[in-house]
């Protein structure tokens, strides 16, 4: 997933246009005022009538809750609690383990790796909704998964998730071609797709064109969640505003721009995990082992766009958990990773976890100045003082990156540090810049550093890079683009140096490796990088099941990238969650983060009495 620099920046948010941002700032201001003034009454009332409420927050508007069209972090946040997927990450175990959720067991995979047979649970009900006969949710069937996949393939639904399934499943591409010939609303979903069969109500069979070991990771992804055909046919175009899923919570009220309210699904099937990783028992994470989920009766996601109001609401006890805004790092932490006294005295605890992501300064390998001038790329890479960068922008809470595999991911190779071209060394930088000038034949033209975002932090990050590169005598200018424009320019190859990053979608380094594959130019291969040796390795890895040879291969791939230097790696970011004392069972997940944990709300337990006491004390 392409990640932007700011914690709160929505990754694929199409509303990133500055005009919209400005309008949203104004609206958010109003919404912020409303939510601040309104929240007390809301929560207190809700508390009395409807039992235990969990108070969450969102950083932007929810645009849709149709799983196949959810593409931003806020949408994913809510949708993951409303829709369950076939598989999920084990809530407690680390390293990450995929476990069945709606599926009854892990898939049976044929010997050639192309046929998956997945048993479906027999006790899963959809939410009660007017679309079902009698308003009662029916049992989940394998056909619902088939239907969801066909919807993604249907070109008339304009799904944003088609790229996941593109050229993967036998016959699904033909189905997509067929939908092109249909009129809107006349697509026949009963038309059979060879690779996508419900053998009976509880058995699903997926046939692939070629082995795709990552399929099981994608079956944890919100877009592949089963959808009830009744709901889609009942609500039609409005389905995005009427989510009917199998998740632990059912959306009751949704006021665009203000809040989303969801209540417990009374017939929810899942139970709290009975085993965990080492230390989980001591941390009290297994106290609810085996109990039926969820533990709260209601969730309220408040939409608070600005950092500071969100932070204030958290401190006042109107939010149960929060991230730490950049400007409050100093307030939260004393030296090291210890919480400052203000927070320990309030019984607030902090959880740190590494993101499976890497940030870098990407070089456009088609740019005439950069492409044949490796010393220039080396000089730029060597002149970036990463320690200081991390100290200034992350208050020291991030790791320097030497290659693209983050330390948190399986297969991290510490040997890369010794040979890495991504480190701070001014002497080397000055040496390389002289070489670069000889290659360029004298003067190096003015360079351009671009970032996707127009916020003050992003401007400061660009200015920092500018300063670093200027220190070796090169001329640099800054380009700030809003996110959609940035992506568009990136695809066109208009940009020269790009400050970007990538966060793995699943615990497999393949998620990073695809970035450098030449057939992925221009997206997600923003580097416009192409190397046949690398491509050959990637093609091998992509269809290979996990094994030591595979690990060796992708470490080799990382060395090739380090040698060719299509980007200067800068850092691996760490994330923080601040939790109040009254919320328990919180364990962050690197792959489902954005602070609040996508789809993990059902595990959280709240002690309302403690919360009330806190609110009184710090009013």
């Amino acid at each position: 997933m392409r990640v932007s620099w700011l914690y709160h920046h929505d990754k694929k948010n199409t509303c990133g246009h500055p005009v919209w941002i400005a309008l949203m700032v104004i609206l958010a201001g109003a919404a912020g005022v409303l939510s601040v003034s309104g929240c007390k009454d809301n929560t207190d009332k809700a508390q009395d009538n409807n039992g235990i409420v969990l108070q969450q927050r969102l950083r932007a508007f929810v645009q849709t809750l149709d799983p196949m069209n959810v593409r931003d972090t806020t949408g994913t946040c809510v949708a993951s609690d409303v829709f369950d997927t076939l598989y999920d990450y084990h809530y407690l175990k680390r390293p990450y383990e995929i476990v069945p959720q709606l599926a009854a067991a892990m898939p049976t995979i044929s010997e050639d790796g192309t046929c998956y047979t997945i048993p479906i649970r027999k006790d899963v009900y959809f939410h009660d909704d007017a679309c079902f006969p009698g308003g009662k949710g029916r049992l989940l069937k394998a056909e619902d998964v088939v239907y969801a996949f066909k919807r993604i393939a249907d070109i008339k639904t304009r799904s944003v998730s088609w790229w996941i399934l593109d050229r993967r499943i036998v016959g699904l591409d033909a189905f997509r071609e067929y939908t092109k010939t249909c009129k809107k609303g006349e697509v026949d979903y009963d038309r059979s797709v060879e690779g996508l069969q419900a053998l009976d109500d509880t058995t699903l069979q997926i046939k692939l064109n070629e082995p795709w070991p990552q399929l099981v990771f994608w079956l944890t992804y919100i877009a592949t969640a089963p959808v009830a055909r009744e709901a889609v046919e009942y609500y039609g175009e409005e389905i995005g505003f009427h989510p009917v899923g199998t998740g632990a919570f059912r959306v009751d009220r949704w006021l665009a721009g203000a809040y989303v309210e969801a209540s417990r699904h009374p017939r929810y099937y899942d139970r709290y995990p009975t085993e965990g990783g080492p230390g989980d028992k001591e941390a009290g994470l297994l106290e609810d082992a085996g109990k039926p989920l969820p533990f709260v009766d209601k969730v309220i996601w408040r939409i608070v766009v600005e950092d500071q109001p969100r932070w204030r609401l958290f401190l006042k006890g109107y939010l149960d958990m929060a991230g730490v805004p950049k400007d409050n790092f100093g307030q939260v932490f004393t030296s090291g990773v210890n919480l400052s006294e203000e927070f320990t005295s309030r019984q607030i605890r902090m959880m740190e976890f590494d993101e499976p992501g890497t940030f870098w300064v990407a070089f456009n390998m088609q740019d005439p100045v950069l492409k044949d001038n490796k010393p220039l790329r080396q000089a730029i890479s060597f002149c970036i003082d990463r320690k200081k960068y991390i100290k200034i922008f992350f208050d020291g809470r991030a790791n320097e990156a030497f290659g693209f595999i983050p330390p948190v991911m399986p297969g991290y190779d510490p040997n890369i540090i010794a040979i890495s071209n991504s480190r701070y060394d001014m002497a080397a930088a000055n040496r390389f810049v002289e070489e670069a000038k000889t290659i360029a034949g004298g003067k190096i033209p003015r360079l351009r550093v671009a970032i996707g975002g127009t916020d003050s932090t992003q401007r400061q990050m660009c200015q920092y890079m500018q300063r670093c590169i200027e220190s070796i005598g090169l001329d640099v200018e800054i380009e700030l683009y809003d996110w959609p424009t940035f992506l568009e320019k990136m695809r066109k190859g208009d940009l020269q140096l790009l400050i970007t990053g990538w966060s793995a979608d699943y615990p497999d380094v393949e998620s990073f490796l695809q970035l450098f594959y030449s057939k992925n130019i221009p997206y997600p291969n923003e580097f416009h990088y192409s190397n046949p040796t690398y491509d050959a390795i990637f093609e091998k890895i992509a269809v290979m099941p996990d094994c030591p040879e595979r690990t060796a291969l992708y470490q080799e791939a990382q060395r090739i990238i380090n040698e060719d230097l299509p980007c200067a790696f800068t850092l691996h970011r760490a994330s923080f969650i601040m939790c109040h004392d009254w919320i328990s069972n919180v364990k962050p997940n690197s792959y489902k983060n954005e602070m609040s944990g996508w789809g993990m709300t059902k595990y959280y337990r709240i002690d309302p009495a403690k919360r009330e006491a806190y609110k009184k004390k710090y009013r």
Partner: protein
Amino acid sequence: MQPRGYWSDAIRRLRKRKLAMLCFWIVAMYAGLAAFIWIGDILVTHLDWKIPIVQWNEHVGPSYQKPAAQYEFVPEMKTESQKGWCLLGTDFMGQSTFRKTLYGAKTAMMVAFCASIISILIGVPLGALAGYYRGWVDDAIVWFYTTLGTIPYILLLMAFAVVLRGAHIGPWELRGSVSVYLAIGLTSWVGLCRLIRGEIIKRKESEYVLAARAMGCSDFRILFFHLLPNVFHIILINFSLRFVSFIHAEVILSFLGLGETDKPSWGAMIDAARTELARDVWWEMAAATVAIFIISLALNIFSDALRDCLDPKLRMD
């Protein structure tokens, strides 16, 4: 007694006003500072001179040091730490707020000046043509500027800034400040155009125009050599009045992240300070707002006085 000319009389009357003159010198100081930094910037970037005041992006201390507070830190490219202090403290990146504020003056003055020139170049000829020819020319121009005028200014300004940023005009790509100059200039000529049009309509039947016409002068000559010099004071007054609003427009654009990107700007400083205030970092906000306040106040008082002095009705003592 020597009869005094229009301009020398105006200057003489302006000089009598103590407050207006003080304000004039303040404005001149800002302009001088802007010019100094403009030249200094060229010397620093192209000739590698060392002029600390101009080198705003030097990291002079740790993040968020209070104004005039002593601190110890390791300067760039050095290994041992040394003591230092900053008059207005340091920002998030450890850069001097004082230098950034001064540099902001250059950014603001440059933008306001260039945008004024652009809006005059558009507004004056269009207004003059509309007022002189009337008929369908007038209809077209008035229709055009009324339409433009109905769009709320900030929205129009933002839209222009977004469209112009990185746009290609022929072989040139608009970058950084140029797109800001254009965005502000292209959106704020309506008021001036309307004024000039009215003034030309008023004057085009006057005797000296009639005389010129009788002598066989061309329309072009009458318009640009007889009429326009006589409305020049309006352009001047308008220039000084609008200058403030142009500075504000630049601040708004930078605040929204649509303005100057490479260089410090007061708007960008306020934008950065928005979140900093919560952790008691007030100096960046204070420095930028005080700088804006002083130039706005001085320009307003001065242009007010200028209008009084240039008004022919108030001319005789």
